[in-house]
């Protein structure tokens, strides 16, 4: 039920790396370093502005992948990876979308597990990819069966 969606993308959504959201996020991961929120520190840095922590893309809106329905409960976040061309700048605009990269099933001690791989992309206004964020989500047999009902 997921394999048919491989290759599908969501529509691009404009996101702004919001100053307040970055500060709140940095605090929530226990990393309130001034490079993330203090304007003076940002100006004096090589970036000449504040930057965002590497896991910040969790907060962006990546739009909707047509037809892809995920259960609201029972998903397991198995793996996560980020790739950056450069750090994200506070205040910049990014165009974000998601793509179903892969889906496969593997037999395990917990039954047949489904692995859904989704990559989130963030592009600058000129269309260059600044970051990708790839999540591997594990969907157990029980959760998949409950979805069919």
């Amino acid at each position: 039920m997921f394999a048919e969606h491989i290759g599908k993308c969501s529509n691009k959504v404009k996101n702004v790396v919001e100053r307040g959201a970055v500060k709140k996020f940095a605090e929530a991961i226990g990393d309130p370093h001034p490079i993330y929120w203090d304007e003076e520190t940002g100006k004096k840095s090589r970036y000449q502005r504040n930057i965002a922590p590497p896991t910040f893309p969790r907060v962006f809106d990546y739009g909707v992948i047509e037809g892809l329905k995920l259960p609201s409960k029972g998903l397991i976040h198995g793996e996560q990876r980020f790739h950056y061309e450069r750090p994200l700048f506070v205040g910049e605009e990014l165009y974000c979308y998601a793509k179903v990269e892969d889906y496969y099933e593997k037999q395990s001690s917990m039954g047949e597990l489904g692995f859904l791989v989704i990559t989130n992309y963030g592009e600058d206004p000129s269309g260059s990819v600044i970051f990708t964020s790839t999540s591997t989500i594990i969907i157990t047999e029980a959760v998949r069966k409950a979805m069919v009902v």
Partner: protein
Amino acid sequence: MTKISELKVGESLPEVKLPPVSRLDLIKYAGASGDYNPIHTIDEEAKKAGLPGIIAHGMWTMGNLAKLFTPYYEEGFVQDYSVRFKSMVFLNDVVTLKATVKEKEDHALRFDVAAVNQDGKEVVKGEVVFSVY
């Protein structure tokens, strides 16, 4: 502070031991990240999901682990960061964050990174490629 680029293979960044995981930590992360899955904040929902109690968001631990690299922002940036969520983090767990240089290239350092609980169990394990300017 030592420059990150001067670290040798086998050397580590200073470890960070987090305070015991509190419910408020997870409520704050839910709010800041937009991940309101109730297994991270509400006991009954965690129990309904078959868990002994609420568990930390994997991304909370991953986010914490990245802060080992924050002080070196003038020298470079985290170019690649990949982890596997190996085990659950529960309330009151004491998590220690670690990063050790695995390989050195011309303009990058490859680190093994891990978050380890009070029993020495790796809860998050992965790799960081820190690109040096």
